């Protein structure tokens, strides 16, 4: 790394934005330089300067999902988005919100809560994630399926490209089909094409009441059957999960297979739903502690290996069994078909076996976190339309300036 190239970056933004590089290591790889820009124009300027200098930039927010994807091929410049944390526009009566992408979800929820509203997402590991990271990783929690995915709540976004351009798509109204939904392409793209600097969302009224019930069952099969029955019971539910026995224990519940359901809505709807749950599962009772928080943290653990399978609802229990058999804690969400596995370590062969299991059902397996070695040996995402992704990369980031290698060789 020549000092001259780094100086081009330094000239692009005010000197007070530079940070000590050693605080930004990823997979034990340290960047040559780090910045914490104050606004979107500085993000764009840095990206452009990196692009011109042939350096690889890695944007980061809450640094909670750095182990998602393949290890970086190169890492020269860290761009922290913490300085972009303003609420740009919030119109409570319209249920719409526009924020800068560096704001953290918990700060956002705090603002919304004052007006009885929230952004209805529960990503791993908790609410200490940046909005940019939330979008770039597109990770959901137990609410998914009962509630929309983050990308379905996203009304529009502004994205800084390696060309230095700031580009918008979508808008700030709740319904809009003007032009290509590029904000959807950037959602889940792990920063392959640009850095999200602003996002507009539709938000929701907070439920008046929430209540979590846990129903222990004798077997996982029984838990799966009960969960499907509850899914089809028309309940005011916001989450409905099947927990393997080990997971139930880690969530602070009993030590057997368990169906965990969160009811949310008007008090009358929650009361009636509770009755219906108890009719179907007489042993169901209010769950102590904060089991959902514990499950989110397990899902978002970056020290362990974490996998996510997507399977049909009717295969959730079988998938949990298969993931347990590979030595994992396992639980799954019926409405989204997401099954999470968590183990201290998992070898590539086990992951490929589970991937084959999910693929047979029309589903998939994604490695959510794992060692650098594991994410080198195994494709974290599985098969996809690599040619189209390469083609998009070539148009949006032809020099491979952003997050090089995180998707695949060169992307």
């Amino acid at each position, binding site marked *: 790394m020549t000092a001259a190239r780094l100086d081009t970056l330094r000239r692009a933004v005010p000197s007070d934005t530079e940070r000590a590089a050693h605080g930004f290591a990823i997979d034990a790889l340290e960047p040559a330089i780090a910045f914490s820009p104050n606004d979107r124009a500085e993000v764009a300027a840095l990206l452009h300067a990196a692009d011109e200098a042939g350096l690889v930039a890695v944007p980061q927010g809450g640094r909670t999902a750095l182990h998602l994807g393949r290890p970086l091929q190169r890492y020269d410049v860290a761009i922290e988005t913490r300085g972009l944390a303003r609420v740009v526009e919030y*119109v409570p*009566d*319209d*249920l719409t919100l526009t924020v800068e992408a560096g704001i953290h979800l918990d700060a956002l929820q705090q603002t919304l809560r004052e007006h009885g509203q929230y952004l209805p997402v529960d990503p791993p590991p908790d609410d200490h994630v940046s909005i940019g990271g939330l979008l770039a990783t*597109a990770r959901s929690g137990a609410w*998914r*399926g009962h509630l*929309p*995915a983050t*990308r*379905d709540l996203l009304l529009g976004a502004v*994205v800084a*490209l390696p060309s230095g351009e*700031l*580009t918008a*798509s979508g*808008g*700030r*109204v*709740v*319904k*809009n*089909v*003007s*032009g*290509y*939904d590029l904000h*959807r*392409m950037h*959602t*889940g*793209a792990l920063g392959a094409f640009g850095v999200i600097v602003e996002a507009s969302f539709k938000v929701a*009224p907070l439920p008046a009441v929430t209540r979590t019930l846990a129903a222990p069952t004798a077997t996982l099969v029984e838990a799966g059957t009960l969960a*499907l029955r509850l899914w*089809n019971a*028309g*309940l*005011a539910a916001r989450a409905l999960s099947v927990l393997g026995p080990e997971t139930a224990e880690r969530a602070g519940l009993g030590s057997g297979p368990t169906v965990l359901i969160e009811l949310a*809505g008007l008090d*009358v*709807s929650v009361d*009636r739903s509770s009755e219906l749950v108890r009719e179907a599962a007489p042993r169901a009772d209010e769950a102590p502690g904060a089991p959902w928080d514990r499950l989110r943290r397990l899902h978002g653990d970056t020290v362990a290996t974490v996998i996510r399978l*997507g399977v*049909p*609802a009717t295969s959730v229990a079988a998938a949990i069994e298969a993931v347990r058999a590979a030595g994992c804690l396992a639980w799954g969400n019926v409405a*989204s*078909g*997401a099954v999470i596995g968590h183990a201290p370590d998992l070898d590539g062969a086990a992951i490929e076996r589970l991937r084959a299991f999910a693929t047979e*059902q*029309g*589903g998939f397996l994604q490695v959510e976190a794992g060692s650098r070695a594991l994410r080198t040996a195994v494709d*974290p*995402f599985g098969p*996809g*339309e690599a040619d*189209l*992704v390469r*083609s*998009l990369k070539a*148009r949006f980031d032809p020099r491979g300036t952003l997050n090089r290698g995180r998707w695949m060789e060169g992307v």
Partner: protein
Amino acid sequence: MPTTVHPAFIEALERAVGRPHVLSAPEDLVAFEYDATIDRALPDAVVLPRTAEEIAAVVRAANEHDVPVVPRGSGTGLAGGAVPVTGGVVVALTRMNRIIEVDAANRVAVVEPGVINLALQDALAPLGLAWPPDPSSQRICTVGGNIANNSGGPHTLAHGSTVNHVLGLEVVLADGRIVHLGGRAMDTPGVDLRGLLVGSEGTLGIVTQATLHLVPVAHAVRTMLAIFDSVDAASAAVSAIIRGGVIPVALEMLDQAIIRIVEPRIRAGYPLDAGAVLLIEVEGLAEGIAVEAEAVIAACRASGAREVRSADTQPERDRLWEARKAGIGAVGAVSPAYYLLDGVVPRTRLPEVMRRVLDLSQAYGFACANIFHAGDGNLHPIIMFDPALPGATQRVLDLGGEIMRACVDAGGAITGEHGIGLEKRAYMEWVFSPADLAAMERARLAFGSVERFNPCKILPGGHGCAAGHAEEVARHASRPGVYI
């Protein structure tokens, strides 16, 4: 500027889909020169394929002969998306109309693109399921068309647009490759190419099969009709309902002009002297909807509703909805032509923008009726006019432009569910910067489809495309007929 196709191209098409499924005689082609808009252009040929492989072969032939390819469903599009403005071959997907699979237990359906929306709903209803997109054209529009336009409908308010309910797609790309985007489970890993494809109006690829996400039909539904003396009061009620924290599953407005057109035909019991009505639906558990209905009624009364009726039986509900669904079509019976607009504003800006719409229509001297998705802030002014009067068509288009401008000025969008197509290309520059549009162009280039699939749609400019809507329309505006 239609291209002249070589006879060898027609032969190639015949090899691709079979001779009976290629149309090239002028009298056959006229049925494919328009959709539900004002724009018209003749294709050079039409193919009616049955499989993805046949479509791939058509696309390869089009590449070889450098001919544009324009996909088409039922032709109910409201933005000129299916009009082959530069000629070429229209790929009509109406023969690909099989429901391949309904996996009720997992709430998934796999369908071909030519399946009629309502036919799908009819197949799902006995299973207690529905596919949420429910545009007013659902009796004839196709699922493929819904996907191409990211269609909405009254129930978009609760469920979101089409893109939220598409899990996976099989797509033929411009190089003739068949690819699979998304999957059968939710939230497939990788770049969300599925999300980019939905709403791309046939410019990035041709959908040949779709895996859809279904929803269960609610246990209980309450449909209400709130009656107001003015559009202003009804608009204020929309904001009051949303502000109150109850999000109905549908929240539709009909103004006096449309009530007076629809009610004599449908007899749904809409009062002819009302300034506007709101058709409001809540659903869920019976206990919950009773409370929600009370909140809705209170918000309506506080905003000046003179009456709120409740439809308690299915036939009553069906009649209320029939008036809503038949509303736009009924305009054809009272006006020689009409122009249906589609714009979006923040819900809190509804009262002022609705006033502006009515003032502008009056200033231009046209009757305007309104029947729209108020809960989403999604306006559909219907401008009635007689195209036989000199200059009327141009003035209607000018008025449409001014109304779109009012939406943009209020912080809104130039289309909520009908798409950009041909009609609104020129307006794209009102909401997007040159850099924004260049980024969209990058995506289109990445799909390798700029000259091949549906040229001159969505993005302004383009080789061989007219400069803007007015110029495109001027070529066809002299034609009589009912313009929607």
